[in-house]
């Protein structure tokens, strides 16, 4: 509790890992006004149910591109009596201090989210790419292995842009071109040149997306294979035609092939009202290395341990690449047995970036006092608390 320095990094090259030293919220969900002042090290957030711990992590998750850890709509984030919300943070890293802010802005054509860096001009949230590397784990992700492919794909894409910040922009461009093409097809508008132009973009961005995913899964797979002890080793595989094709075919040929298929599928896609092929339909298959069984067949507790193993593996890979993420771990401690909890805290202590943990009581976090600061959140504000050694 008395050492404000972050835990020393064990790796040779010092990763530049920004840590939050200030977080201000206004009109954001249940936090009408809140300003946290922090030391640049890990945080344990303690408070009763409903006090707004997850909301706080969600606010941090919005300091990056995307819709945050709940994928909420902009209006859902608005507090009960608020007409606008804003999130501000001071990041302290080796590169110095940065001020990041994001807010809801009403325009003539509806609400949008804007972001500023160091008080500069307001831009779209994509401008935040790479500023604050983040990784999160929430109770809602407990069903990641059993639910539909969409959430797993988004989970994978977040892992990718943890290593390759340009991935966010690529996905956004791809998604926009998808919607443009479908709009034309649904309107019955078969302007071949226009469709070809969009399909060429889709093919170029699609291959780049698939290639970035392949690269991430390879790096992460290598890190996970080395995992042993309380967190199980996982095997990762990409399920997607394009990702598979890249293993055997030059990227340029895959790109051409995809553009050709899109052109051939115009009628089917128009009828289905959706784009039937492409990396937006890929999936991440996770299996237990020891048993060779798919993760979805494991027990709930085992699935959670697998997810944590993936997250820790990703944190190691990203840290080695100099992009140590801030980890947001919502209610992770509660569902682990004592041995795994201790093992998790040990791993987190070795992580060079800031870690945010939440829980309902301090007793769950025994053993974190050396590396974390305790924050007790209550309805009327917050205070520093001592953690157990």
């Amino acid at each position, binding site marked *: 509790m008395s050492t404000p320095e972050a835990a020393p990094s064990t790796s040779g090259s010092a990763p530049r890992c920004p840590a939050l030293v200030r977080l201000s919220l206004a009109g954001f969900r249940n936090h009408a006004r809140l300003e946290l002042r922090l030391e640049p090290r890990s945080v344990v957030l303690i408070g009763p149910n409903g006090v707004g711990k997850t909301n706080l992590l969600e606010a941090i998750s919005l300091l990056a591109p995307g819709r945050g850890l709940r994928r909420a709509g902009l209006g859902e984030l608005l507090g009960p009596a608020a007409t606008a919300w804003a999130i501000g943070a001071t990041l302290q890293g080796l590169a110095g201090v940065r001020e990041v802010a994001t807010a809801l802005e009403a325009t003539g054509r509806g609400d949008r989210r804007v972001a500023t860096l160091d008080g500069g001009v307001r831009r779209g949230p994509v401008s935040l790419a790479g500023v604050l590397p983040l990784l999160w784990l929430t109770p809602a992700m407990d069903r990641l292995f059993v639910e539909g492919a969409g959430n797993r794909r988004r989970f994978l894409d977040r892992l990718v842009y943890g290593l*390759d910040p*340009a991935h966010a*922009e690529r996905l956004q*461009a791809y998604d*926009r*071109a998808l*919607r*443009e*093409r479908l*709009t*034309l097809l649904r*309107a019955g*508008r078969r*302007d071949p*040149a*226009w469709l*070809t*132009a*969009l399909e*060429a*973009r889709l093919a170029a961005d699609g291959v780049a997306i698939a290639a970035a995913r392949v690269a991430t899964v390879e790096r992460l797979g290598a890190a996970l294979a080395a995992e042993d002890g309380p967190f199980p080793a996982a095997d990762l595989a990409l399920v997607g035609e394009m990702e598979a094709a890249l293993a055997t075919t030059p990227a340029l040929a895959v790109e051409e092939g995809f553009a050709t298929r899109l052109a051939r599928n115009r009628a089917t896609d128009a009828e289905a009202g959706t784009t039937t092929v492409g990396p937006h339909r890929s999936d991440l298959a996770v299996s237990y290395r020891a048993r060779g069984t798919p993760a979805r067949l494991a027990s709930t507790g085992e699935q959670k341990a697998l997810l944590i193993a993936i997250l820790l593996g990703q944190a190691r890979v990203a840290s080695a690449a100099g992009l140590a993420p801030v980890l947001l771990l919502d209610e992770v401690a509660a569902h682990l047995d004592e041995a795994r909890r201790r093992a998790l805290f040990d791993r987190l202590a070795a992580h060079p970036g800031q870690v945010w943990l939440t829980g309902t009581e301090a007793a769950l976090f025994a053993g974190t006092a050396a590396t974390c600061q305790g924050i007790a959140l209550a309805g009327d504000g917050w205070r520093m608390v001592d953690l157990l050694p």
Partner: protein
Amino acid sequence: MRSKGAGAAGPIERLVDALARLPGLGPRSARRAALALLRHRESLLDPLALAIEDTRRSVHACRRCGNLDTTDPCRICTDATRDAGLVCVVEHVADLWAIERAGAWRGHYHVLGGTLSALSQVGPEQLAVAPLLARVATGDVREVVLALNVTVDGQTTAHYLAEQLAAFPISVTRLAQGVPLGGELDHLDDGTLTAALRQRR
């Protein structure tokens, strides 16, 4: 807060509302601008009113290239020292001005008026695509430079135009992408660096 200033009425209110619709201005800055105009009648209000009236009366879009000028065709299109065989396609007049400021282009222009966007319901017929093809079809054009923004819509439009122009015996080029002058490699984004390496010479 309402857009109308308390106490403002009639013409002032209309002025504030009109100013607030300008790009970059909101209700607050529009009120400040309106008050400044009224406070400095001779130095601000009168010259602005004259300039707006003059512009309204005399400036038109060039029927050939879409540039804004007091003559139609515009002075660029009628400049005999410029090479009419070279046509630079831009999204907006602002882009034309940017290229003119650089002073490096001695050919003609073609202002598209935007980019293709199915989501915003902008198709080829909303843009000056047919006039461009008509210009090229006359046989006077040797090269078309697609100087569109490097955005998703800009590049889709460039690709579309390249397809449309492929039928003509002319060369179709695009602006190079790469390291800006005075740019430090360390601060460049990955995409720009990759493009610069790919287009090295």
